[in-house]
C-alpha cells in the first residue's frame, strides 16, 4: 500500500480506483452483519466463491463477491444484494448460490422465490421494500455497501474526502462552528450538543496547553442493541475519519477507541482499518502533508456495562477499575491523564464526515429542531421485521414499529416499546405518536439512550420486563455508591415479590418512592436512570401491577407463580406432541383424544404451548 502524500494524491488514487472498476461487472454483496452471520452468511459467501470457481468464468467477467457489513433487515437474513441488476435476495441459503450465479449473474434474470415478498407483492430492489423506504442512511451510508476490510472500497465510496476538505480548507475553529451549527448531539445516550462539548474542550486546551485526547466510545452493552457493533464492523473508516477531523479541530495527537472485548469482529475490522489508514498516511505523522500528526489506539474493555459512562471509561483507559467519578470536572476539562478529553460515541463520530462534506445547514434540515440528523436503532423483540434501522429524528414510535417493523406478528398492536436499553423507559401503545427525539422521549419518561428499541406484545408482562432489566443492571452496577449497589437489589426484591403475587397496593407506591430515591441519590447515570423501567411501567401499566398483587394474576401469562396451563378439549386433536415434549411428564391422554395437564406437577415452562400445532394450550 503506497503512502498518500497530499490531497492531490488522494484524489488521484480515488480516480484510478474508479477507472479500474468496470460498472458492468456483477457485484454480489453478501451481508456478514451479526444477524446474517448467525444464520450462516459465511457459508453463503463461500458457496458463491465455490460455484464461480467451478464454472470457470473468464476472469474479467467474474462476479465480485463482497462480504459487507450489516444491510439492516436481519430477520430476513442471509441478505444478498446484486449489482448492476439492483436485485435484493432474502433468506439466501448456501444451496441457492448455484441458481443465483446461473440465472442472475450469467443470464441477468431474477430468482423470483428469493425476492422479498409482503402482502402478495414481490420487491426486486431493496429500495422498494417497505422496511427500507422510510429510512435514511447517513451513519450507515457505507455499511452493507463496502467491504470493510479494504480501504480501497471505502475510498471509492468517498471516505476521507471530508478529512481532506477539513485539513486543507477549514480552520479548527471553523470545524467546531460547523459541528455546532449542525445541531449534532451525542449519540451515546446523553444527547449533549457535540459542538459545544468540543468548544469547551478546545477552550480548556488553550487555557492549559499540553496534550488533548479524543476517544471513540464503542462500549455498547445494552441487551438487544447492536448499533455501534454494526457500524464498527461495517464501516470502521467512517469512525476513524470522524475522529481524525475531531482531533484536528481540538489539536489532539492521540485518539483511543474503546471497544468491548465481546466484539471480536469489530476489533478486528477496526484494527485492520487503522493499519491500512496508517499505511496510507491517513493516520500517523504529517497527514496529507498538512503537518498534522494523529494516531489511534484500540483499547479493549473487559465487558463492564458501566465503562460506557465516560468517567468510568477514562478510569479503565488509565488502567484503574472501571468506576465512575462525580462530574464536574467534566472530561472536556479534566479527562484522560488529567487532560481535556473529548469522548463521543462512535455513531457521533461517524456523523462528522457527512456534516463536513454536506454542510451544517443540510444536516440541521434533517430531523426536528433540537434533535437534528438521523439515529440508528436496533429494532428487536416482538416485531415482524427486526433489524437495524436508521431514521430521521422525529419519526413517531408507531411509524417505526408498524411501518418499518411491520407490526407485531399475529397481533394488531404492540403493547409497549422499551427505548434506550435497560435504563430507558417503557412507552405504551397509547403514546405511539410520540416523536422519537431526545426531548419528546424524555418527556414521556424514557430516554433516547444509545438506540435500543425492544417491542413488546400482549404476551409480555411489564413486571417481568422490569425485573429482567433490573437483574441486568444489578449485575452491572460497579457498587461504588450505595443507592445503586443496594437499591437495584432492593427494587428487585419488591418485583420478585410482585411476580409471586405477594405484596400490596401500598408496596407499589413504596417501590415508586424507592425508585425515586435511587434516581436522585445515585452517583452516575447508571444508577440515575436504572429506575426508569420501573417508573414508566408503574406509570403506564399500574393496572398490571395491581393485577399481580391484588388479583394474583399475571395478565401477560409470564410470571410462573401466577399462571396455569390448560388444554382446551374442544381444540385439542390428541396428537401427543405435548406429551412427548413435557419435561415433567405431567400431560396425559389417549391418542386422538383430548389431553389434560396435571397442574400440581406442571412447572409452567410453556413447552407444550410452544409445540402445540393447533394452539389448544392456554395460559391464564
Amino acid at each position, binding site marked *: 500500500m503506497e503512502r498518500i502524500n497530499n490531497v492531490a494524491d488522494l484524489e488521484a488514487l480515488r480516480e484510478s480506483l474508479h477507472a479500474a472498476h468496470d460498472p458492468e461487472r456483477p457485484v454480489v454483496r453478501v451481508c456478514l452483519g451479526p444477524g446474517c452471520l448467525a444464520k450462516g452468511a459465511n457459508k453463503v459467501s463461500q458457496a458463491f466463491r465455490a460455484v464461480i470457481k467451478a464454472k470457470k468464468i473468464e476472469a474479467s467477467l467474474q462476479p465480485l463477491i463482497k462480504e459487507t457489513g450489516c444491510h439492516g433487515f436481519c430477520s430476513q437474513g442471509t441478505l444478498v444484494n446484486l449489482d448492476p441488476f439492483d436485485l435484493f435476495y432474502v433468506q439466501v441459503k448456501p444451496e441457492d448460490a448455484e441458481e443465483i450465479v446461473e440465472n442472475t449473474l450469467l443470464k441477468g434474470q431474477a430468482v423470483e422465490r428469493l425476492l422479498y415478498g409482503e402482502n402478495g407483492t414481490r420487491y426486486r430492489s431493496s429500495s422498494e421494500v417497505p422496511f427500507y423506504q422510510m429510512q435514511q442512511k447517513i451513519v450507515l451510508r457505507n455499511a452493507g455497501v463496502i467491504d470493510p476490510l479494504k480501504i480501497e472500497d471505502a475510498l471509492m465510496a468517498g471516505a476521507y474526502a471530508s478529512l481532506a476538505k477539513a485539513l486543507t480548507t477549514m480552520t479548527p475553529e471553523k470545524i467546531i462552528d460547523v459541528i455546532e451549527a449542525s445541531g449534532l448531539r451525542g449519540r451515546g445516550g446523553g444527547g449533549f450538543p457535540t459542538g459545544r462539548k468540543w468548544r469547551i474542550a478546545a477552550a480548556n486546551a488553550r487555557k492549559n496547553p499540553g496534550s488533548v485526547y479524543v476517544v471513540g466510545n464503542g462500549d455498547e452493552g445494552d441487551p438487544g442493541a447492536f448499533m455501534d457493533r454494526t457500524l464498527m464492523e461495517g464501516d470502521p473508516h467512517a469512525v476513524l475519519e470522524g475522529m481524525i477531523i475531531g482531533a484536528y479541530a481540538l489539536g489532539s495527537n492521540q485518539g483511543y477507541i474503546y471497544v468491548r472485548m465481546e466484539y471480536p469482529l469489530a476489533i478486528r475490522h477496526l484494527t485492520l482499518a487503522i493499519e491500512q489508514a496508517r499505511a496510507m498516511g491517513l493516520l500517523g505523522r504529517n497527514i496529507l502533508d498538512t503537518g498534522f500528526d494523529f494516531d489511534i489506539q484500540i483499547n479493549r474493555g473487559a465487558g463492564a456495562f458501566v465503562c460506557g459512562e465516560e468517567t468510568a471509561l477514562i478510569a479503565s483507559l488509565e488502567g484503574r*477499575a472501571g468506576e465512575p467519578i462525580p462530574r464536574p470536572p467534566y472530561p472536556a476539562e479534566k479527562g484522560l491523564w488529567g487532560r481535556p478529553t473529548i469522548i463521543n460515541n462512535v455513531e457521533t463520530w461517524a456523523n462528522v464526515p457527512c456534516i463536513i462534506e454536506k454542510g451544517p445547514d443540510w444536516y440541521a434540515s434533517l430531523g426536528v429542531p433540537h434533535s437534528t440528523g438521523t439515529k440508528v436503532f436496533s429494532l428487536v423483540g416482538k416485531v415482524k421485521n427486526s433489524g437495524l434501522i436508521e431514521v430521521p429524528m422525529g419519526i413517531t414510535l408507531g411509524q417505526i414499529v408498524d411501518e418499518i417493523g411491520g407490526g407485531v406478528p399475529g397481533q394488531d398492536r404492540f403493547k409497549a416499546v422499551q427505548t434506550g436499553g435497560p435504563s430507558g423507559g417503557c412507552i405504551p401503545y397509547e403514546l405511539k405518536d410520540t416523536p422519537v427525539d431526545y426531548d419528546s422521549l424524555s418527556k414521556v419518561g424514557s430516554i433516547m439512550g444509545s438506540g435500543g428499541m425492544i417491542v413488546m406484545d400482549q404476551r409480555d408482562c411489564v413486571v417481568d420486563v422490569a425485573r429482567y432489566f433490573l437483574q441486568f443492571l444489578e449485575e*452491572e452496577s460497579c457498587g461504588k*455508591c*450505595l443507592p445503586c*449497589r443496594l437499591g437495584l437489589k*432492593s427494587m428487585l426484591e419488591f418485583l420478585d415479590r410482585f411476580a409471586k403475587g405477594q405484596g400490596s397496593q401500598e408496596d407499589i407506591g413504596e417501590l415508586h418512592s424507592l425508585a425515586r430515591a435511587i434516581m436522585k441519590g445515585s*452517583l452516575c447515570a447508571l444508577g440515575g436512570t436504572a429506575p426508569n423501567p420501573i417508573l414508566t411501567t408503574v406509570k403506564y401499566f399500574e393496572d398490571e401491577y395491581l393485577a399481580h398483587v391484588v388479583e394474583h394474576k399475571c395478565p401477560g401469562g409470564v410470571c410462573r407463580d401466577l399462571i396455569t396451563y390448560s388444554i382446551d378439549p374442544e381444540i385439542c386433536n390428541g396428537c401427543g406432541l405435548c406429551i412427548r415434549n413435557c419435561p415433567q411428564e405431567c400431560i396425559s391422554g389417549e391418542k386422538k383424544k383430548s389431553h389434560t395437564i396435571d397442574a400440581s406437577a406442571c412447572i409452567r415452562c410453556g413447552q407444550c404451548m410452544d409445540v402445540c400445532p393447533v394452539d389448544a394450550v392456554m395460559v391464564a
Partner: protein
Amino acid sequence: MSAKKAQKAKETKKAKKEKEDGLIRFTINGQPVQAREGWTVLETARQYGIEIPTLCFHPAVQPMGSCRLCVVEARQNGFSRVVASCISPVQAGVAVLTHSEEVQNVRRWVLEMLLAACPASKQIRELAKEYGVTSTRFTVEHPEDACPRCGLCVRACDEVVGVRAISLGNRGIFKEVTAPYHQRSTDCIRCGTCLYVCPTGAMEQLFPQVSSE
C-alpha cells in the same frame, strides 16, 4: 441624599465588599452562609454547625461520595438537583436544603437498605433510628455483616498511611474490602488506622482477615 440613593450606595458598597473578600455567599436551609473558594457544601455546613449525616466522609482523606447519606438539595435558577454535599464545591447564590423531602427520601431508603446489608453494625442502627428508620423490609443475607463498602478504610490506608495494604475488591453486590488474593496482607503495618476510621465497626471483624500476621 434620597433614601433610594442611599440604598443603592449601600448595595454597591456591599457588592464591592463581597467582591473583595473573595468569599462565596449562598444559603443553607435559608440561613445565609459564606465559604471560601474550593470548600465543599459539607465543609461549609459543618463550619456553621448545620448537621448533615455522613458515613464515608473523613476530613483526613479525599471525599468519595459513595454512601450518599450526605445528599442535599441544591436549588438555583429554577433547577433543583440532589447532590452529595461532601464532593460538591460551593456555588454563589445556590439555595441548599439539607432536609428537604427529596433528600429525606434518599436518606431513609439508604438507611433502610443499610439495615439489611449491615445488620451487625450498632452504629448504623443508631444512625437509622435518628432518621426514624427502625426496621427493614429487605432480606438480611449475612447477619454478621457490618461493612457498607464505603471504602473509607481503603482510602485512609492509602492516603494517610501510604501503605495500600487493603483495597475494594470485586464489583457491584459482590464488592468487598479485602487484601490482594484474599490473603492476609504482607504490606500491612498493623497501625490500626482502618480500625479507627471505620464508621460502622466492621473493621473489627475484618481486621484479622486482612492485616498482616
